[in-house]
C-alpha cells in the first residue's frame, strides 16, 4: 500500500520517513465523520483517538443490521429472533476472543475498561464476604496489598483505592523515572508476599510508554499475586495475545478500537474467573433463585447480569474484523512511523517539551507535550481553531502530570486514519499558537 494523501510540508526540515504501512486515503473513506469540517470549513484533523476512536461505516452497518434484523434479548426466549440474536452475540464473543488469543468462555462483556476493572475490584471484596467457600479463594482483607503504578489512568487507580477502603488492604505503587519509564529498582519490595493483585497498564495513555510486563508478571506470580493488565491503550494499537501476556486479566474498551460506545471487555483466565463471586447480579447470571438466596451460573454468564449491550457487542466484533483485515502488525508499524515523525517534528519547535519517552523504543503513539509559556488548554484552543482535535488536561492520569511538575499537557494520539499530513497540521498549529500568544 502506498501513501499518497500527504505531501511533504515545505516548512519542515525533517525528511518524511518511509511510506506509511497503511493506505490512509482508502481508510479515511471508511470513516463518515472525517468528511465533515469544523470551525468554519476546516478539515477535521482528529488526533484524539486515545480518548475515543472514530467508527468506520462497517461497524455502524453491523449494529444497524442487528437492530433491523435479529434484535432480541440473547439467552432469553425461544423464538427465532432470540435464537438468531443469541447466535450473533455468541459468535461476536468468539471473534473478540480470537482477537486476543482467548477462548470465548473467558470473555466477559462490560460497558468499558472502567467497569471491567471495577468488576475485578468488587469481586475481590465480595470474596471476603461470600458464603460459598470456593468464592473466597481470592479474598482481599487487612494486611493484604494491591500494587499499581504511578502512570495509571484513574480507571486503574481509583477502583483499587476504593477496594482498599472497603477491605482495609494497603495500596502500593511503582514510581516513574524522569524519562517516563517505570522505576523498577524496588520491584521486589513493592511486590511481595503480601501482594494480592498487581494492576498495570500495558501502554500509558499520557506518556505513550509501553511497559515491560514480562518481568512484572513473573514477579507477581512468584509471590502468588494476580495480575490485571489495562489494555485500553494497547489492544487497539498493537497485537496482544493473552497466552503470551501471561497475566490473569486483560481489560479494554470497544470505543477506543473503532467499536461502538458502551461496550468493553474483561478477559480472565477461566480458572480464576471460575473462583470469583459475582459482581453485578440480576437476570441471566443465576443458577437457582429463591427468596432465601441464590446460586450462580458459570463464567462468563456469571458476570453478565441483565439484558446486555447486544448491538454494541456485534459492532465491536465488526471493529475487530476491520482491524484484523488491516493486520495489527501493520497498525502497530503505522503508528510507530507516525510517532517517530511526530517526535521529530515537535523537537524542531523551540519551547516544545515532550513528556514521555523521547524516541519510539517501547513507546506507543500518545504524544503529550507542553509549550513554553502557553497553557495546554490555550494550545488546544488554537489547534481547535485550525480544525485539529487534541486532548488537554491531566488526561485522567493526574498523578503523572504532578510527577512531571506540569499542570497539564496537550496530547495528540494517532490511529489507522492518521497520516503525515495530520502531524504536519499539528506542528503548524503549535507554531500558530506561539505566534498568537506572542511567545516567539
Amino acid at each position, binding site marked *: 500500500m502506498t501513501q499518497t494523501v500527504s505531501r511533504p510540508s515545505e516548512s519542515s526540515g525533517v525528511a518524511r520517513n518511509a511510506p506509511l504501512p497503511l493506505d490512509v486515503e482508502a481508510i479515511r473513506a471508511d470513516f463518515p465523520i472525517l468528511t465533515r469540517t469544523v470551525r468554519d470549513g476546516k478539515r477535521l484533523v482528529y488526533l484524539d483517538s486515545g480518548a475515543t476512536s472514530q467508527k468506520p461505516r462497517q461497524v455502524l452497518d453491523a449494529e444497524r443490521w442487528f437492530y433491523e434484523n435479529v434484535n432480541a434479548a440473547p439467552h432469553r426466549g425461544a423464538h427465532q429472533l432470540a435464537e438468531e440474536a443469541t447466535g450473533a452475540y455468541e459468535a461476536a464473543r468468539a471473534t473478540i476472543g480470537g482477537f486476543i488469543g482467548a477462548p470465548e468462555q473467558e470473555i466477559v462483556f462490560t460497558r468499558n475498561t472502567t467497569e471491567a476493572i471495577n468488576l475485578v475490584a468488587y469481586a475481590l471484596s465480595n470474596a471476603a464476604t461470600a458464603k460459598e467457600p470456593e468464592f473466597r479463594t481470592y479474598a482481599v482483607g487487612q494486611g493484604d496489598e494491591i500494587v499499581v503504578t504511578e502512570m495509571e489512568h484513574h480507571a486503574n487507580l481509583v477502583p483499587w483505592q476504593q477496594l482498599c477502603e472497603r477491605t482495609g488492604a494497603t495500596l502500593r505503587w511503582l514510581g516513574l523515572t524522569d524519562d517516563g519509564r517505570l522505576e523498577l529498582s524496588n520491584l521486589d519490595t513493592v511486590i511481595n508476599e503480601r501482594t494480592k493483585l498487581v494492576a498495570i497498564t500495558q501502554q500509558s495513555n499520557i506518556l505513550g510508554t509501553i511497559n515491560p510486563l514480562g518481568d512484572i508478571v513473573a514477579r507477581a506470580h512468584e509471590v502468588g499475586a494476580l495480575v490485571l493488565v489495562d489494555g485500553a491503550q494497547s489492544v487497539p494499537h498493537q497485537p496482544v495475545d493473552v497466552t503470551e501476556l501471561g497475566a490473569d486479566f486483560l481489560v479494554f474498551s470497544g470505543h477506543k478500537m473503532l467499536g461502538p460506545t458502551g461496550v468493553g471487555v474483561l478477559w480472565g483466565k477461566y480458572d480464576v474467573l471460575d473462583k470469583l463471586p459475582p459482581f453485578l447480579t440480576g437476570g441471566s447470571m443465576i443458577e437457582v433463585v429463591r427468596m432465601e438466596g441464590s446460586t450462580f*451460573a458459570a463464567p462468563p454468564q456469571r458476570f453478565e447480569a441483565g439484558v446486555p449491550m447486544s448491538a454494541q457487542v456485534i459492532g465491536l466484533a465488526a471493529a475487530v474484523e476491520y482491524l484484523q483485515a488491516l493486520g495489527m502488525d501493520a497498525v502497530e508499524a503505522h503508528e510507530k512511523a507516525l510517532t517517530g515523525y511526530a517526535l521529530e517534528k515537535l523537537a524542531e519547535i523551540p519551547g516544545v517539551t515532550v513528556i514521555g519517552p523521547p524516541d519510539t523504543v517501547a513507546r506507543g503513539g500518545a504524544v503529550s507535550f507542553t509549550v513554553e509559556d502557553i497553557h495546554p488548554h490555550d494550545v488546544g484552543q488554537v489547534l481547535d481553531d485550525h480544525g485539529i482535535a487534541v486532548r488537554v488536561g491531566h488526561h485522567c492520569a493526574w498523578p503523572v502530570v504532578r510527577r512531571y511538575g506540569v499542570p497539564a499537557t496537550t496530547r495528540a494520539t494517532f490511529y489507522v486514519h492518521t497520516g503525515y499530513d495530520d502531524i504536519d497540521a499539528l506542528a503548524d498549529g503549535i507554531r500558530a499558537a506561539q505566534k498568537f500568544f506572542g511567545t516567539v
Partner: protein
Amino acid sequence: MQLENMYQEIILDHYKNPHGRGLREPFEAEVHHVNPTCGDEVTLRLHLEGDTIADVSYEGMGCSISQASVSAMYDLVLGKTVPQALEAGEHFMTLMQAKGDPSVAEKLEDELEDAVAFAGVSKYPARIKCALMSWMALKDASARAWGGPA
C-alpha cells in the same frame, strides 16, 4: 410446518408414555440438575451392578423434549456398562451439535437407537439444553457412583 421435524412421533410417544419413570431403590448415586433458563429439573438415581447399569430411575418436571430425552436415555443405557453409556452420551452430544445435519444422524443411528429422533432438536439452540439435561445428570451420577476402571 417445521414442527414435525423436531417433535418426531417417537419423541411424543416417549413424552406421553415415559419409560422407567419414578425413583427406585437401590441406588449408588442421586443427582439433581436444573435448567436455569426455564427452571425445569430432574432428579436421577443410578444403580450399578459392577460396571453395568442395572437401573436408572428418575423424577422431574420439564418440557416434552427433556421428558422424552430421559425416557429414551433410559432405554438406551439400561444394561450397558458405564463406559458404554458415557460413549452413548458423547454420541448424543455430537448429534445435538449437528445443527440439523441429517448425515450426522444417519451415522449415529445404530448407536443411539430411539434417541436419534432428537436430531431435529439440534436446529433449535434454545432446546438443546432440554435434550441434554438428563444426559448431564447421568454423567454426573456416573462420576459419583463409579470410580472408573480400577
